[in-house]
């Protein structure tokens, strides 16, 4: 049988026990938080990988990615024909609109967008929250390396494919060692 | 005039003045707040008359309970902020009332002055007349029966107030009649 008031005493005991324990608060500006590598702080842009496919801008639920580009014609190599290529003029993310869903990063087929755990980019003016491509490029240095593959996981298919390609390239030219190195 | 007398005159003026404001102000809640001032100064008068126990009972019951109850009632009956125009009766009734009250004051004061002018209250010497000990012994030795009767009256008032303010007390038989259909 439960004593009357046992619940009340239990409540008091919980708070008293919590008080005698160390608190878990981090004093933020003095102690930087240890963020997990996959934290969603800010979105970084690797400009070289971007092909202006516009997938990110189209998938963005709140339309906060602005992309301008123009086409450039690459002069035809010998015997070939001319090719066209997109050149990025402007890539901007308005972080005052962004809701950090990460759909743009998922959607990017060329690995041009990355999550960075950096979060200290508050501004006094809302207009300054729009980060142009230079700023987005600077965030790249804060992107953590991808997490190591789990020890017993299946080997990534990319590695197998790369090794097979290398073996195939190396197999016919096995006796002469020098050309292989030259080919690489 | 001694210090006590000067204080009493001042408190009396405050009491009468605030009482006048209670009956003449045209803002409902202000009337209740002036009543607090009036009752408080009457409590001060009791203190000066060496009736200490009565004074604190006055503060406890009147200011702490009665006025709070009155304010509660005023707020529940939607007392507006600012002046209300319909608090007083018409001019004719007001004149008659003033005449009646003035006449009453005149007659009573004349009678009092005639009967008691020159009499003095002796406040010196024995100061224990109004202490809680003497009030307690008077209450529970000489006045036990009235006290008990009073407690019965309070009980009746309590039951009455509950019956009045509960909506379901009087309705029940009708509901029982109409219930099965």
């Amino acid at each position: 049988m439960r004593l009357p008031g046992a619940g009340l005493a239990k409540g008091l005991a919980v708070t008293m026990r919590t008080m005698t324990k160390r608190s878990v608060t981090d004093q933020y500006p003095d102690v930087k938080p240890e963020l997990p590598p996959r934290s969603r702080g800010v979105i970084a842009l690797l400009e070289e990988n971007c092909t202006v496919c516009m997938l990110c801008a189209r998938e963005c639920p709140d339309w906060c990615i602005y992309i301008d580009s123009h086409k450039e014609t690459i002069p035809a190599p010998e015997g070939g024909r001319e090719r066209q290529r997109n050149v990025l003029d402007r890539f901007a993310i308005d972080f005052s609109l962004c809701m950090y869903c990460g759909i743009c990063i998922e959607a990017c087929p060329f690995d041009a967008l990355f999550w960075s755990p950096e979060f200290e980019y508050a501004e006094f003016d809302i207009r300054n929250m729009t980060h142009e491509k230079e700023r987005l490029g600077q965030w790249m240095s804060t992107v953590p390396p991808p997490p190591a593959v789990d020890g017993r996981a299946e080997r990534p298919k990319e590695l197998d494919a790369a090794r097979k390609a290398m073996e195939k390239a190396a197999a016919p030219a096995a006796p002469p060692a020098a050309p292989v190195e030259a080919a690489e | 005039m001694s210090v006590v007398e000067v204080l009493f005159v001042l408190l009396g003026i405050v009491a009468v003045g605030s009482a006048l404001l209670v009956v003449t102000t045209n803002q409902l809640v202000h009337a209740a707040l002036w009543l607090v001032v009036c009752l408080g100064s009457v409590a001060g008068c009791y203190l000066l008359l060496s009736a200490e126990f009565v004074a604190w009972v006055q503060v406890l019951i009147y200011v702490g309970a009665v006025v709070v109850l009155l304010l509660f009632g005023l707020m529940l009956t939607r007392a507006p902020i600012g002046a209300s125009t319909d608090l007083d009766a018409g001019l004719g009734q007001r004149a008659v009332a003033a005449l009646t009250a003035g006449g009453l004051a005149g007659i009573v004061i004349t009678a009092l002055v005639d009967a008691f002018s020159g009499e003095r209250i002796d406040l010196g010497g024995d100061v224990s007349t109004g202490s809680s000990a003497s009030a307690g012994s008077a209450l529970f030795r000489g006045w036990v029966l009235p006290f008990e009767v009073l407690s019965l009256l309070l009980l009746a008032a309590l039951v009455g107030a509950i019956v009045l303010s509960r909506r379901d007390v009087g309705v029940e038989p009708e509901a029982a009649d109409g219930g099965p259909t």
Partner: protein
Amino acid sequence: MPLLMPLLVAALLFSIGAYGVLVRRNAILVLMSVELMLNAVNLNLVAFDVWLRDALLSGQVFTLFVITIAAAEVGLGLAIVLLVFRNRETSQLDLLTELREEPSDPAGVGTAAR
């Protein structure tokens, strides 16, 4: 202290309370005026008690009784006022005339018409 001092204050308070009861239309204000009159009586009781040096302290004891009764009276009075307000949406005393007799009709026309 002259006995007249408390007595005069009490007489004035009582008259003011009487004026309030006669003049006010709001039920709660009337209750307040009644409180004023009760206080005047209490002041009288205490003053006479101290003046007479009563061994039984009857004045002060009666003051306590009156204060108690006043509290009960206000409690009941407010319950009634709130009930009336709930049913009639008003606490103006002169509008609560439903139980009043019809004003006498000299010609007798009013009753005949009904």
